[in-house]
């Protein structure tokens, strides 16, 4: 698909929205809700159909129960709505905590141009995956119980994951909000939000560490159900480490698409530094992957499981660990030595497949590998997953086309303390109306 939006106009030329009052905000918001550019593009039609049918399937699921649209059974209580949408999706959203850590804590300026897109991606991922999680819950209206205190199951890993998940989504909201504030020209709100950034990032990295690890920790309670090649008391650590290279790879993949599709929204500065950024991400990914593989070897040795590699499940394990973790690692190293951005981009896809395989193996494929009747996802489960992804893409595109995510807002260029100090009389007027 191609962006169907005109480039962002230069500062001062845009009609001035009055977003300081409620009615003004609503008028601006409704006007912005309208699609920009052509509506009937192939991408819109296909994803539109997927979303509409998906909503129908979701309606059936709520009217008749999970059994009507999923292949879940008494033997397989968790399918791809958990194994892919939540467990895999959250790993890929890991890019947000890694990058905010690099940019806001370690002050690595190099990655600043991509931090907003990554955080937005992370935020939307969390919102939509927790949405998908609600579809999978039998009694979603009770989801607030562990939050409001109708039964604090604090001995449960899921309790930990739920709380950290919720709090981290709020952190991501705060980290995304400055872009929205610039879009609305809420100068005061932007100033407050930006002051909260460092603290929010520190909290966010902490929460991410625990709930990325916690998602793996969930499976610690199934030692007799997960194939010994995948079961390990190190699952939480492995999940945490792999969420880093999952995150790196997702940033590389995502930037490939956003740069092609929204190239008009990317500013020149960002374009220039982009190759250097991608090589850096590849380096980061490679170093984390070598640590991950090292842990995997230790696990194999401690569990005396080398012999199992010669079984069918062992072969499948090698496909994941060698084919989609070791090979990408080697390719990343080669790409860095040759300074080949193209190879970094392609390797990111391979790495992502490896992460998907790993998460699906633990949650679905190597889970009860011994059962005679195995679980495989139904059409309904796959369709709804695609619908959730499509909805996320729509919202992502809507935000990218309106808010200063890929490039800086002309009125809020770095180097200026705030819009207040600009000489643009219109900006000064919004400042007054916002305060």
């Amino acid at each position, binding site marked *: 698909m191609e962006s169907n939006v005109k480039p962002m106009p230069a500062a001062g030329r845009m009609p001035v929205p009055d977003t300081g009052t409620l009615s003004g905000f609503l008028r601006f918001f409704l006007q912005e809700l309208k699609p920009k550019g052509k509506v009937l593009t192939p991408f819109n039609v296909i994803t539109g159909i997927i979303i509409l049918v998906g909503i129908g399937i979701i309606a059936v699921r709520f009217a008749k129960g999970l059994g009507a649209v999923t292949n879940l059974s008494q033997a397989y209580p968790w399918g791809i709505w958990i194994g892919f949408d939540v467990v895999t999706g959250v790993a890929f959203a890991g890019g947000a905590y890694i990058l905010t850590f690099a940019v806001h804590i370690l002050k690595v300026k190099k990655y600043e141009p991509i931090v907003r897109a990554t955080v937005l991606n992370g935020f939307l991922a969390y919102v939509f995956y927790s949405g998908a999680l609600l579809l999978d819950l039998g009694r979603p209206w009770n989801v607030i119980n562990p939050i409001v205190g*109708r039964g604090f199951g604090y001995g449960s890993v899921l309790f*930990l994951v739920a709380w950290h998940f919720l709090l981290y989504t709020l952190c991501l909201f705060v980290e995304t909000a400055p872009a929205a504030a610039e879009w609305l020209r809420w100068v005061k709100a932007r100033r407050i939000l930006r002051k909260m950034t*460092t603290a929010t990032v520190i909290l966010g990295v902490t929460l991410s560490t625990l709930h990325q690890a916690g998602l793996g920790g969930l499976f610690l309670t199934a030692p007799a159900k997960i194939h010994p090649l995948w079961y390990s008391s190190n699952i939480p650590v492995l999940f945490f480490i792999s969420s880093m290279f999952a995150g790196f790879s997702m940033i590389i993949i995502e930037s490939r698409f956003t740069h092609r599709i929204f190239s008009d929204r990317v500013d020149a500065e960002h374009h220039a530094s982009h190759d250097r950024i991608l090589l850096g991400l590849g380096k980061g990914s490679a170093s984390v992957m070598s640590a991950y593989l090292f842990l995997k070897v230790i696990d194999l040795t401690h569990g005396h499981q080398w012999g199992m590699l010669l079984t069918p499940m062992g072969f499948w394990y090698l496909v994941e660990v060698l084919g989609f973790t070791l090979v990408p690692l080697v390719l990343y190293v080669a790409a860095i030595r040759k300074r080949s951005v193209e190879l970094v981009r392609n390797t990111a896809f391979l790495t992502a497949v490896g992460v998907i395989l790993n998460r699906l193996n633990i949650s679905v494929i190597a889970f009860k590998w011994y059962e005679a009747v195995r679980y495989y996802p139904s059409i309904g489960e796959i369709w709804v997953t695609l619908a959730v992804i499509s909805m996320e893409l729509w919202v992502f595109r809507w935000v990218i086309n309106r808010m200063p995510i890929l490039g800086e807002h002309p009125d809020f260029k770095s180097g200026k303390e705030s819009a207040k100090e600009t000489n643009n009389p219109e900006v000064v007027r919004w400042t007054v109306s916002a305060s």
Partner: protein
Amino acid sequence: MAINRRDFLKVAGTAGALLAGARPAQAAHAVRTDVEFYGLLIDTTKCIGCRSCEEACNAKNGLPKPEVSFSSESVFEKKRDTTPEAFTVLNRFPNEKSPDKPIFVRRQCMHCTEPSCASACLCKAMVKTPEGPTVYHKDRCMGCRYCMVSCPFDIPKFEYDSPSPFVRKCIGCPDLVAKGEPTACAQACPEGATLFGKRRELIEEARRRIYQSQDRYYPHIYGEHEVGGTGYMFLSAVPFEKIGVRTDLGTKNYPELTSGFLSSVPLVDILWPAVLFGFNYLVSGKEKEDTKEDGHGE
């Protein structure tokens, strides 16, 4: 932007609140030593496969009538599992010791001493009562099915065909047990194959039987040590892997599998922010300059 005192307090306060919420896991499944658990001893050498226990369970829990009547033996043709409508089921296994006397084995919740389902539940819908039964509070359940993932015996069953589903399983007749009365299935058993009592006394009785009739019993009490001990225990004439129960579960109680990870949570929640603030200070260097600097993209 350099962090200042206020930022630090903001994070420290939140982290402190988290710490208070995330109490160490051990507290959640502490064993009560002042009350003795009740349990069942199921002696499969005495069971004749009459299915009275199934019928009594059905009546006690108000479950729908089964497709095949309780008097029919045709159900034994294939191995059955419990369902949302049947909390206990009997299965028939060949007896290598005396081929004309098949072995009947009940399957139902084992009411573990430290249940995995209860420790897995994030809203305390599954709870171990002091008397022994592991009960289910349907009003709290959100239907996440993590109890099903965690149960080593695959006992909790889910109502997949209901728009307002519950998890169903044997809840161990908590109303009767609280009064010290036997469970419905134990009351119904005409052969004394299901024996109700204090867990400690049941283990003594089981040991006595094994010592006194060494030909009759395989010398093991299934559930004495499995997954840290279960409230419902089995005796068998043949090795347990031959009567369809898992013998590879180990003796570690399941909540212990996650307690190490969970007790690291408060540590990470407190130490991580401190370390990250430290990094931030180190990198910021000269504070005065940095406060002027406008870290764009924040």
